[in-house]
């Protein structure tokens, strides 16, 4: 049976892993290669590296972090942040990424999704969507959650799929870093709207939140950062509990 994936996310800036609350108040959480390796040994099914500042100055530092991380990592590695062109994407793949996540650039030039999918395959393209609740639904934000776009999340997820995305990484900005639980309503709305896998992100704080997002949200994968970095929850313990709750997970691994 296809298992539900537990993905450890490393937010990286200046070559260091950091973690904030609602995209702000960053705290240092370690070296990317060491963190990725520790999470993989603990049972993470995938690792995501997100370059959260992604200025051109940081580009080389990020590529170094990617290649150091990829060298001894034998689970899938997704890299995102600041990928604006197919050349940016190619450099990240060359450094050892298996998939790239595109966010702001995909909103600005949706044809980038198709270009990367044509060259590297749809399985290599993850469209990351930062979603915020609005009166009548969910709105897409870009630039690390700083800029509203007026776009509807469901529509954008559907368009991303039709343009060639292989997965959607869906982050609830309202829940990010709060440990108050995933936004299952948001996740379910997107999983029902598309036929590609959806990775739920934002709000993980306890085992029951993961059970909820897999059952109620129908997520294919769930991503978390702070609860793993700061050892609030170990992936090993999380997976054992999910297994006991009859959620199919890769365990033992």
């Amino acid at each position: 049976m296809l298992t539900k994936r537990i993905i450890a996310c490393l937010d990286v800036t200046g070559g260091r892993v950091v973690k904030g609350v609602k995209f702000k108040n960053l705290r240092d959480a370690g070296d990317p290669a060491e963190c990725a390796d520790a999470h993989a040994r603990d049972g993470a099914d995938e690792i995501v590296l997100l370059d959260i500042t992604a200025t051109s100055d940081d580009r080389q530092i990020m590529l170094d972090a990617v290649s150091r991380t990829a060298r001894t990592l034998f689970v899938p590695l997704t890299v995102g942040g600041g990928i604006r062109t197919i050349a940016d994407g190619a450099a990240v793949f060359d450094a050892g990424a298996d998939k790239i996540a595109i966010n702001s650039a995909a909103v600005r030039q949706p044809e980038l999704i198709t270009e990367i999918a044509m060259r590297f395959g749809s399985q290599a393209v993850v469209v990351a969507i930062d979603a915020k609740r609005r009166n009548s639904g969910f709105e897409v934000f870009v630039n690390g959650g700083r800029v509203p776009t007026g776009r509807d999340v469901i529509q954008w997820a559907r368009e991303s799929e039709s343009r060639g995305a292989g997965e959607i990484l869906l982050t609830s900005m309202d829940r990010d870093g709060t440990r108050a639980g995933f936004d299952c309503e948001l996740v379910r709305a997107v999983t029902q709207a598309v036929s590609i896998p959806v990775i739920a992100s934002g709000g993980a704080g306890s085992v029951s939140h993961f059970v909820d997002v897999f059952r109620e949200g129908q997520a294919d994968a769930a991503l978390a950062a702070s609860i793993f970095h700061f050892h609030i929850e170990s992936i090993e313990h999380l997976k054992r509990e999910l297994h006991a709750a009859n959620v199919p997970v890769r365990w033992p691994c």
Partner: protein
Amino acid sequence: MIAIVDYGAGNLSSVRKAFDHIGAEATIAGQSSIIDAADRIVLPGVGHFSALSALNESGLRDSLLKSIASGKPFLGICLGLQWLFDGSEEAPDLAGAGLFPGRCRQFPAKVKSPHVGWNSLSLSGASESEHSKDRESGPGKSGHERSRLLCHLPSDPFVYFTHSFYAPVTHATSATTDYGLPFSAAVERANIFGVQFHPEKSGAAGLLILKAFCEV
């Protein structure tokens, strides 16, 4: 020396890194001369079946078929497994190697496509209970014991898949996986091996498979 065939499709360096990690010498090669000189051949690849047309255009197809016929161990990964079959609905005009019968097809609409993530292998030839009996009583006759590629794996191993098309189950299938229907997750006949999943991305289980390939 292991030649990892470079035909412009997929993340070859991750396959090489995995062989490096287990201490096997592997080189990424796009020329027939290097492939001809290698002891073992790995044909990786992700993406669209049509990417395999590069093998025909570059003349690598003939080198690969010649090497396989000579008895050299060959491992196809993902698209590389699909190439071993007659062809794929994904690119109907492009012939595969035709070493295993059948064509690759798209997953049924009832399941999400692509099939992405960690799924379990059912090792062919015996039920789970027969597997455990065989292990207790020494070398047995189950598919698990017969497969030279999968012989080091624990029971019900999880491996990482990412694909939209699948190869049918044949007499050469050494492991199946269920995703809407059972398909060939691994095939094996004499010196010819193929895996639909990515051993280089399948953690410890994947490294055991690559190690077994180095030892056949």
